């Protein structure tokens, strides 16, 4: 009986881990951040806003900038609370 159950459980475990192997949340934790500094320094006039690649990069970098501002704000708040 045990001989049958062990391989079945092993296979079930294998498939349960492989099907969730590429969940975006899991990957996001290990991912690199977009390096937007050089792109954001470019004059806006030089960018072609009708180009989907440029539009996608602008969107990504704006979101990244927002995130950075928010995390700096949060860090400052935490520091303030710590000092008081």
């Amino acid at each position: 009986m045990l001989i049958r159950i062990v391989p079945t459980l092993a296979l079930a475990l294998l498939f349960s881990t492989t099907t969730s192997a590429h969940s975006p949340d899991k990957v996001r934790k290990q991912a690199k951040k977009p390096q937007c500094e050089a792109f954001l320094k470019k004059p806006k006039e030089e960018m072609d806003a009708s180009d989907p690649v440029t539009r996608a990069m602008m969107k990504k970098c704006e979101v990244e900038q927002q995130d950075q501002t928010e995390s700096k704000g949060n860090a400052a708040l935490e520091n303030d609370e710590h000092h008081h």
Partner: protein
Amino acid sequence: MKAIKITLGLILLLIATGVGFLYSGLYPMGADDRHWGVSYWALETLRERSIKRASENISVPDLGDSDLLLSGGADYNDMCAGCHLQPGVSSTDLSLGLYPAPPDLTASADKHDHAHPFGEHDWDAALRRQFWIIKHGIKASGMPAWGETHTDERIWAMVAFIQKLPELNEMQYQILTARGESDQGGHH
């Protein structure tokens, strides 16, 4: 009657020879042992005819939305770049070791070293082909069936990203494929 017996005998002999060859272990199975020209042609023709038939009824959605580049780019980087390369990377252990060699998707279609079965102008057929290959994979080639674990929407986003990939430089690729904390592109 005699002719029928001879024909049947030859067919049986042919089958026995084929089965004998399968069991002999003589066929070189290593990926570092290249196919003969005729075998390569036969396998490539089989693959391309099969994909063309299987993908002909797929309808292609609008791939112009720039958000698709963000979700497709991040997925491409996680799942495809190891074999199909990225700007600034001309080879990897996988791209060198796999046989048949995975196509370099950073090169435009006319620079790939394998045949494209559809005319240059049959753009939709090329998109359907890419979608089908990503979704279903290709037997005995190292190409997985990503449709097992990814939605059609996510796969079309990868197809959209692949269309832009040959034009991207390293900086553009890094930004488009990085998953920021908010990951606006990941509408899954």
